[in-house]
């Protein structure tokens, strides 16, 4: 026989799970709607009443993105911007290592500058950064698109925190064995920092893939558009073709969802860490 208390607890747990399920479906619904919409024929997507699932599923919209529109190029540009982002992760790791394991003149001031950048809103840097990039002739280049967000002060900070936990003895031993400074970094420090590297790499992928403001500002040549800018144009040019829009949106969201599903642990860890700054 169960006590009334236990019955009440079970009922409570059931109610909470039900509530959570409703919340989860509400949250996920726009994404499911997007996926379904991408496979609907153009006519069906503007039918009223709307159909929940595509009645005559088609790949036409995806084909049109790549044939009539230039989404192949946008996709390639986005991948290139993400790849340039990998250098950012390396730069942040290097800086974090120096701040964690070396003593040098100006270290305090430099670290303060790193943290100060966390407080500057993007609206303030938007115009000056454009002027600076224009001054060094990097507007309208993929490097120019990637450069402003390549390195984040918070990333440097996280690398420093993690790398200060690496015992000095390990580094000393490597040096006694005759390894140079660079070799110590690449063969000892980086492999030992794998957890934080994974977090940063996944976050850099997501930021680079999704980035919108900088590509919008820096790329005026259509050949340099990323997926996000190409998509926003789709909104302005062809307002009555939601099927095509949903296909384009899926093309942008699905790769991130896959990365998220595979590396969820690192993403969640990275976001949780951002709550500790």
């Amino acid at each position, binding site marked *: 026989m169960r006590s009334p208390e236990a019955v009440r607890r079970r009922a409570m747990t059931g109610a909470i799970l039900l509530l959570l399920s409703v919340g989860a479906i509400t949250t996920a619904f726009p994404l499911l709607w997007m996926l379904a919409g991408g496979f609907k024929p153009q006519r069906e997507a503007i039918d009223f009443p709307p159909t929940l699932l595509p009645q005559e599923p088609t790949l036409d919209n995806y084909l049109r993105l790549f044939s009539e529109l230039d989404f192949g190029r946008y996709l390639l540009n986005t991948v290139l911007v993400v790849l340039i982002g990998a250098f950012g992760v390396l730069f942040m790791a290097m800086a974090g290592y120096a701040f964690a394991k070396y003593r040098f003149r100006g270290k305090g001031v430099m670290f303060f500058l790193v943290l100060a950048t966390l407080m500057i809103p993007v609206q303030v840097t938007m115009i000056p950064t454009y002027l600076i990039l224009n001054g060094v002739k990097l507007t309208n280049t993929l490097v120019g698109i990637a450069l402003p967000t390549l390195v984040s002060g918070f990333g440097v900070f996280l690398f420093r925190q993690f790398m200060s936990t690496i015992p000095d003895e390990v*580094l000393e031993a490597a040096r006694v064995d005759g390894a140079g400074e660079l070799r110590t970094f690449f063969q000892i420090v980086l492999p030992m920092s794998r957890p934080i590297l994974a977090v940063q790499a996944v976050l850099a992928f997501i930021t680079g893939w999704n980035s919108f403001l900088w590509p919008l500002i820096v790329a005026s040549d259509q050949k340099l558009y990323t997926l996000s800018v190409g998509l926003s144009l789709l909104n302005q040019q062809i307002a009555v073709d939601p099927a095509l829009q949903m296909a384009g949106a899926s093309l942008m969201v699905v790769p991130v969802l896959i990365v998220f599903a595979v590396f969820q642990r690192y993403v969640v860890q990275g976001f949780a860490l951002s709550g500790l700054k």
Partner: protein
Amino acid sequence: MRRASLVPYLFVSPALLLLIAFGILPIGVAAIVSLTDMNISGLANWSNVEFIGTANYAALVADPDFWRALGNTGLFVVVGVPAIVIISLAAALLLDRADGRFARALRSFYFVPAVTGIVAISLVWGYLYNTQFGLFNWVLSWFGIPQVQWLTDPWLAKFSVAVVAIWRGTGLNTIIFLAALQGIPREYREAAALDGAGEWRTTRSIVLPLLSFAIFFVTVTTTIAWLQFFDEPFVLTDGGPLGTTTSASIFLYKEGFRLNQFGYASAGSIVLFAIIAVITFVQLRLRRRDEES
């Protein structure tokens, strides 16, 4: 710790140079440009740029569009911050309470919006909001409600745009709250339960006070995010109808990159920066006073 001549500088310099070039230097550039009449002709040739003192700031104060953008932004903050804090806190408390494999699987759903690209998401919501063939109006038609102008009615558009940002902003903060909840030792709650405190009472008197730092942190960062609100209205309404969803950031973007008034927009960005700094500072002070009492 190592003392080595040039090595640490080599390690630091790539990241530091980038941070200075795109994080620190722009502040100075913005401040200087804000005192000039820099526009598209100045971009081509610096000799076309002239110092005009504080004329840009005076013009801003007299610009009703700027005031309206600030007013819209204030409204977004007042509505959006409590909404995001309360929803993500509630979601985190429930997710933390319901253990087990099923609840764990549900978690991912709540996190997903945080990683999706805003342009794609805005298109999806724009489709849902569509007046003629959107899903929302169809659902409302079951109840005999006539077509709702989600994105073209001046007041409703503000709300529609904010809902998308709330939907997207909740996941990240839920993660932060969950991490904080998991840092609370089990013994605290067990002790409260032994003393006869019910679940609701334990949450209110033990858990929430222990979360106060996380709540504070999320409030501050969410406030800053709303003060910089840009992406959703930019894609969904382009600041319309009639400027009702034009946030301060959209105003600055349009002045700067559509009208090429770099000097004027820089002055506006400095003002926005000052507002963000003051609000954040006040929040920090309030928190400190809270801790002292």
